[in-house]
């Protein structure tokens, strides 16, 4: 597989590997937090915008509705699979299992973006509307995760104040993704052209630098992780594969094609590192933040970026083949 090798040797992946290595070697290399946050916002604005422009070009289809519905269902249902595994096999208490489950139901913007890069390099770019699916998948898992955690405690739903719902629904990353999507939808290709040098041309370069930082963050998380057991590490590798397979199967069932199907599988397999951790800290303060960040960012994220994306793409292609 020549394409796979050239993917692994692309600067995007190599910069991620550099970050991982530097972190494990305990180098003091660090990107200022505000710069990292700025890059994270830039990536969301750019993919939202480009997704909207693509939908403006391609028009609305029934496929979009199906994909949105599939995304919504996946985000709400995947935590229901993760939760019993985390409680039973993973031996977590209800609150921690709920918090972790929410991460695996929700999605990772950068995993998606890296997936799109790789799929595009293989000439199977996913449809633009998948950005809307991404945005839609961010929050349902949060709601389900909190509900799962609450079931286990006597005190009833913890922290389910109005503030919290507001926070979850109007989370900055969701607002930016959806907002930029509508900006792209309204301004269309001719409106996008003058801003393309920022949002299109330098996009891959920024992704390199952001993945460098994510590599540093992921490896440092692992070095400082205290609560990780072998069972939990296993789950952090198995859960994304299960979720990716389910995503690929549903994509095949609703008839998504090529890169678009792969994108749904990647979204299902990805686990959140932006919207969910902050929401869990707020809603379930008793949960161990070091635990869910280590699992989601320290283990699942690197796995997905390197091995996961090709695997889920292959699954999506295979399942589609089985059905046709």
């Amino acid at each position, binding site marked *: 597989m020549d394409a796979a090798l050239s993917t692994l040797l692309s600067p995007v992946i190599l910069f991620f590997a550099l970050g991982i290595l530097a972190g494990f070697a305990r180098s003091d290399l660090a990107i200022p937090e505000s710069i990292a946050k700025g890059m994270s916002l830039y990536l969301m604005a750019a993919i939202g915008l480009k997704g909207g422009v693509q939908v403006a070009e391609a028009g609305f289809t029934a496929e979009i509705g199906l994909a949105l519905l599939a995304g919504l269902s996946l985000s709400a249902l995947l935590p229901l699979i993760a939760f019993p595994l985390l409680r039973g096999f993973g031996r977590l208490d209800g609150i921690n299992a709920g918090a972790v489950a929410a991460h695996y139901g929700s999605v990772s913007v950068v995993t998606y973006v890296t997936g799109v890069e790789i799929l595009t390099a293989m000439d199977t770019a996913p449809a633009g509307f998948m950005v809307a699916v991404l945005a839609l998948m961010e929050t349902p898992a949060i709601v389900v995760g909190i509900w799962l955690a609450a079931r286990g405690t006597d005190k009833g739903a913890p922290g389910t104040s109005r503030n919290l719902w507001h926070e979850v629904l109007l989370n900055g990353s969701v607002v930016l993704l959806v907002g930029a999507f509508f900006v792209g939808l309204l301004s269309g290709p001719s409106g996008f052209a003058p801003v393309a040098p920022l949002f299109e041309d330098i996009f891959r370069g920024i992704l390199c630098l952001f993945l460098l930082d994510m590599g540093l963050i992921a490896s440092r998380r692992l070095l400082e992780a205290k609560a990780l057991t072998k069972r939990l590490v296993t789950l952090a590798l198995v859960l994304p594969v299960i979720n990716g397979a389910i995503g690929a199967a549903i994509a095949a069932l609703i008839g998504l094609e090529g890169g678009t199907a792969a994108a749904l599988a990647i979204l299902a397999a990805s686990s959140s590192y932006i919207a969910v951790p902050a929401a869990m800290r707020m809603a379930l303060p008793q949960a161990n933040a070091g635990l869910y*960040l280590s699992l989601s960012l320290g283990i699942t994220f690197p796995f997905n970026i390197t091995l996961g994306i090709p695997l889920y793409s292959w699954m999506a292609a295979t399942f589609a083949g089985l059905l046709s």
Partner: protein
Amino acid sequence: MTDTIHRRRIQVLADKPLMRELIAKAAAVGIENYTLFQAAGGMGESGRWTDDQVTGATAKQMFLAICDKDHEAAFTDAVQPILDSHGLMLLISDVEVVRGKKY
């Protein structure tokens, strides 16, 4: 010479996502005014941390409020039950201010 009045300095170190709840708890016992400071990193029983704006989950801030003894006692009672569950650090000390009416 300017006279100073004795007040209490309340400081609470908390994760940024929990700050809103803390501010609400303070307001509920009558402490409306406060100042926040960013912390840069640290180490506690739950491990080492550094500022982290991308996930936003482990960044910590220091809440500072100046108030009289009664408000302090009410505040301490209000946050005491969540100190452990929320991973807070509560510090109280003496301080002198000039305009007693304001604090």
